């Protein structure tokens, strides 16, 4: 039985534990891979020129760090979104932002950009921004942002994007189509510390922004009117959380494609263990999501030997059955009481 309420001490302790777990995971994942690389050799004097150094610090570590940052963004956005929509089964890709980012990225890829070029994530992020604006404006009616409307517009965006991507793929060449598919299925392959740093700063800003509204989101659980009688500016909170979560997801998808289920599973599992208080659940989701995706990507990198699976495939294999189980459980609860 979990503690009756959240204290600062419990928050600090839980976050500390998760941080240690994250650091350990990053270190372990960097040492795991299809090729053997010696940390000792890489760190020895003159080791910077060795293959071990290149493998550990140029091929693996940036990728592991990117996985951590993307996982954090997706899970944190998921936790915030589940609270905003009052539904524990919400996934951040429902927002439609991912769809906009994916379409923009695909278009740029098929227009001839190299898949390695920074144009792709840049275009994808612009696509995300555009979609956020569209969903936001479309979901507003009479000055109120309705969660119901957000969901519906998001579904429409996703459907449109799926069709657009299929259309673009149909006219693309074979190799281009391969590249598009690979990008869309979710890939963390990157060797740029600069990119990782950029996305990490962004994710931190997003985390801070969302955390400011954590308490107000808690109060929203009692419904809009309940929250208003407790002094919450519901409209402002909804807007801020929607924007914050969308931008986090947009950035994640722009650099790594569509990685599903992280934003659903991680917050959901953590809520079962830590409780629904977002002041704890939000930072825990960020940290837990990072750990989750680091390990999912490690699996993706190693399970096939010399080749690699797109990480989105691993999360789908893990997440699909889990989601079904969740659904059954919540349906049983709802009907059985």
């Amino acid at each position, binding site marked *: 039985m979990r503690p009756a309420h959240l204290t600062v001490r419990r928050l600090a302790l839980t976050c500390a534990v998760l941080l240690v777990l994250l650091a350990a995971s990053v270190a372990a994942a960097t040492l795991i891979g299809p090729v053997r690389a010696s940390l000792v050799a890489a760190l020895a004097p003159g080791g910077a020129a060795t*293959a071990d150094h*290149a493998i550990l610090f140029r091929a693996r570590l940036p990728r592991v760090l990117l996985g951590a940052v993307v996982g954090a963004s997706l899970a944190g956005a998921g936790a915030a979104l589940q609270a905003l929509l009052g539904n524990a089964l919400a996934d951040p890709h429902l927002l439609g932002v991912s769809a906009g980012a994916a379409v923009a990225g695909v278009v740029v890829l098929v227009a001839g950009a190299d*898949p*390695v*070029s920074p144009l792709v994530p840049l275009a994808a992020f612009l696509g995300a921004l555009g979609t956020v604006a569209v969903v936001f404006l479309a979901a507003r009616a009479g000055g109120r942002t309705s969660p119901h409307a957000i969901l519906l517009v998001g579904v429409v965006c996703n459907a449109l994007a799926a069709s657009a991507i299929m259309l673009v793929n149909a006219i693309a060449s074979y190799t281009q189509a*391969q*590249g598009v598919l690979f990008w869309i299925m979710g890939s963390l392959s990157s060797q740029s510390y600069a990119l990782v740093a950029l996305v990490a700063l962004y994710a931190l800003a997003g985390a801070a922004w969302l955390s400011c509204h954590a308490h107000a989101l808690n109060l929203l659980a009692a419904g809009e009117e309940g929250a208003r009688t407790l002094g919450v500016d519901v409209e402002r909170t909804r807007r801020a959380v929607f924007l914050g979560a969308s931008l986090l997801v947009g950035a994640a998808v722009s650099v790594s494609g569509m990685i599903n289920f992280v934003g659903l599973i991680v917050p959901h599992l953590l809520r079962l263990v830590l409780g629904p208080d977002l002041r704890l659940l939000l930072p825990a989701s960020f940290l837990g999501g990072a750990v989750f995706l680091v390990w999912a990507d490690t699996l993706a*990198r190693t399970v096939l030997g010399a080749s690699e699976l797109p990480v989105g495939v691993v999360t789908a294999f893990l997440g699909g059955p889990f989601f079904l189980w969740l659904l059954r459980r919540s349906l049983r609860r709802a009907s059985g009481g």
Partner: protein
Amino acid sequence: MPLRPAAQAHDVPRAAARLTALVLLAAAACGGGPAEPPRAIAARAPARVVPLAPSVTEIVFALGEGARVVGVCGQCDWPEEATRLPRVGGYLAPSVEAVFAVAPDLVLAVPSPGNREAVRALERAGIRVVVVRDRTLDDLWAGMRTVAEALGVPARGEALVARVRAGLEAVRVRVAGRTRRRVLLLVGHRPLIVAGGGTLQGELLAIAGGDNVAADVAEAFPQLAIETVVDRAPEVIVDAAMGTEAGGRALFADLASVPAVASGRIVALSPDALFRAGPRVAEAAAALAHAIHPEAFDTAPAPG
């Protein structure tokens, strides 16, 4: 067909109707053209040829039979005359309708991921389809001979095979005696796809004096993790992927432990000649040799 005399008045129209139906059915069964049974080996050479892949287009033109080509696939862009011919769809998905529209009597195809259905449809319609494989050099020689025979010019086929083989031999001689260099042949940037063992490209690499670092991978075009590339430490990286040169360089930018990166030996090659099992493989091999052993080409090339 003589009719029985003194038949009733309505017998004549009925019989005529039956006759017409029979003739129409027979005509339909024959495919509408002059009554030639389907799949018969033509006594005369085919006059209207449609190659469905860039490689076979090049072979047909190299055999000197370009005049007989009436339609080409969308990606067929060499030689220049081919670009002015009507297009019948893509290499992956040829348009059966467009092929019908140019009324060929011979279609040449290569097994591709998307054209099996189209080939079957063409065969069912009674058009002769010759399929040539393109996986290895041996496939290439066999393919050239098959196409030449189908076109009725077997002697020119042999000549073409001999000419291309000679070109390859010249490349081999050029780099003979030099230590083989470890080479990675890049086919895609992201996903990072390379040419593995058992491919035609791998064979060209070997002729050009290179040692394919991915030769032990059974798959034809495997996807490798970048750390695998680092581990195998190629001395030369040939970037034949479809992206930009800058993209290829960015991919390996920080990996100074890889000899190819340290010495700046990342050479971009156009994928066109390299990935077509056609008459230009000798040029492709030469380009590869130039990339792998540039010192062998320092002196001016021998005339002829």
